[in-house]
């Protein structure tokens, strides 16, 4: 009798687990979505660029639209960095800088990135000027 109850309980847990996996898969899909067209446009026009610290920055004059765009993405980035940093026993800053190293490297020609001296550079076919800590 007890075993039967246990088996039923076990099945219920398994069903709940399966439902959780399906829900997680459903939630993960929007995360894999492509960039917003406005974000892509701001990147390729050089209005925004990748900073060394793992966040986006406004290159020229700040407009309310650009600020909203950059703030929105940076808040989302920060949340992702924080979660991953915790998982890896690192600080938020350490994780963000590690991502920043790669994000600067991932810029395509024409996009802006921040060099170690703080100046904005336009990415060319050459490797970007990066912090020596990026390795």
């Amino acid at each position: 009798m007890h075993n039967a109850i246990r088996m039923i309980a076990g099945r219920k847990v398994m069903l709940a687990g399966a439902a959780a996996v399906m829900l997680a898969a459903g939630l993960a899909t929007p995360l894999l979505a492509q960039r917003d067209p406005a974000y892509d446009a701001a990147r390729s026009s050089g209005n925004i660029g990748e900073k060394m610290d793992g966040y986006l920055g406004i290159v020229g004059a700040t407009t309310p639209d650009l600020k909203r765009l950059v703030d929105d993405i940076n808040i989302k980035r920060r949340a992702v960095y924080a979660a991953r940093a915790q998982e890896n026993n690192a600080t938020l800053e350490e994780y963000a800088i590690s991502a920043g190293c790669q994000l600067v490297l991932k810029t395509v020609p024409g996009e802006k990135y921040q060099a170690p001296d703080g100046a904005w550079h336009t990415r060319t076919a050459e490797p970007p000027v990066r912090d020596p800590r990026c390795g």
Partner: protein
Amino acid sequence: MRETVLRSRSAGLAILPAIMLAGCINIDAPNEPIVIELNINIRQEVIYRLAEDAASTIEENEDIF
């Protein structure tokens, strides 16, 4: 008893110049650049350790990177 204290005191005084000399040598060495270099090495190690995880995080969140 008092003599012992005095003796150990004088022994201490005899060692003192040697300690001070050693101290002088340390002060003359360029301390600061060594400290900065260590700091860079530690951070670089951390950045390196997190690189693989950060790469997959960027890949998995294409819309915000």
